[in-house]
């Protein structure tokens, strides 16, 4: 039973493809575990679809449809079965994470970062300013109190933890921003494994200036 879900603004960012890569990985994992958020994602995508439907029009080139027809008429039909998913990974590991790790939690090469806390930086190419890692907290271990410069999202994959804001079990998501000060504690006999994604403040000097130019024209 999942008690802590994705926020609307995270789901909207995911539905529009604008969520940074590590965050999108975390959201994909939660969606595999949570049918509530999955149907909320459906709503967000329906909203996006309706926005596309009502967006303004710009005329494409006149010969485009003929070019397109010429292209598809050469295609051999693709059987529907070709689009089905590959076999499921080890139980307990979300598919999206399995695709990154290639194995289960037992085979992870953890690095000690302090007493009772280990981490593994995920081998994905994160978006700028982002870091995606797995954390393993030993039972009873109290994380030093900390706050965040940017935002942090955490998804529990095994065990559970508690902090000032509540108790987080498998599938639960915590979204913390720069105002949250917390001290998470792994609160069962089992190691607590989490996927944690941080988003440091970005330095925008020269960052995609071309892409940002049209921002005020919508």
């Amino acid at each position, binding site marked *: 039973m999942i008690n802590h879900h994705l926020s609307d603004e995270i789901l909207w960012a995911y539905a529009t493809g604008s969520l940074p890569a590590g965050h999108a990985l975390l959201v994909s994992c939660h969606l595999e575990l949570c049918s509530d958020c999955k149907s909320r994602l459906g709503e967000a995508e329906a909203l996006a679809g309706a926005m596309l*439907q009502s*967006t303004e029009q*710009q005329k494409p080139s006149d010969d485009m449809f003929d070019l397109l027809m010429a292209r598809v008429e050469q295609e051999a039909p693709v059987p529907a079965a070709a689009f089905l998913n590959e076999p499921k990974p080890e139980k307990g590991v979300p598919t999206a994470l399995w695709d990154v790790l290639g194995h289960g939690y037992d085979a992870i090469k953890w690095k000690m970062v302090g007493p009772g806390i280990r981490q593994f930086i995920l081998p994905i190419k994160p978006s700028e300013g982002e870091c995606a890692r797995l954390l393993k907290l030993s039972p009873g271990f109290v994380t030093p109190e900390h706050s965040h410069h940017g935002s942090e999202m955490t998804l529990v994959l095994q065990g559970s933890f508690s902090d000032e804001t509540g108790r987080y079990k498998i599938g639960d998501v915590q979204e913390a921003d720069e105002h949250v000060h917390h001290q998470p504690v792994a609160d069962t006999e089992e190691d607590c494994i989490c996927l944690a994604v941080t988003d440091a403040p970005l330095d925008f000097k020269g960052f995609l200036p071309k892409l940002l130019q049209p921002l005020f024209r919508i």
Partner: protein
Amino acid sequence: MQLQNNDGDSENCPTSAELSALLQTLGKDRSREIFRELFEFFAPRLKTYFLKGGATSELSEELIQETFVIVWRKAEMFDSRKASASTWIYTIARNLRIDRFRKERRYLYKDDQFFANEMVEEETQLDDHHQTQLSERVKKVLPLLPAEQSTIIKLAFYEDASHSKIAQQLELPLGTVKSRMRLALARLRKLLEGVDL
């Protein structure tokens, strides 16, 4: 299938239900004429979508072509109980845009994954009437949002702008961007419940 009435202000535009019916028919008979109708409706809108995302006119047209190649290939998998035609085509276009501009995220938005995942939760399926109605409702309520809220929603949709980028661009704290987006989406949901077609 029950077709809905037009909005009145868009006399020549097919309704959501009509678009979904077209796409479903395309899946069955691969008619060139139906393919053309869908193309004529969506291509000019997709062009705006790709252009605002930062693509050149040339690249936008290439991406429109790629979108429709996938529509052609996968039309028989379209199921109007799971999504309206515009939502289905939107997700294809979105995935292609990520593929082109945001390669680090591409593995998360595979079309194959999208369609396969959609098959998992049988019990969350709604009837097609609901899906197409939702599209019509959204079209009606979007203009009712206050500008500061709709701007933030549209920045993510058109420009692929993350929360941090929006914050930077609008010179607002990150928390304000998130809470405005949350308010906007909550308000939309409320408006959607109240609107009559």
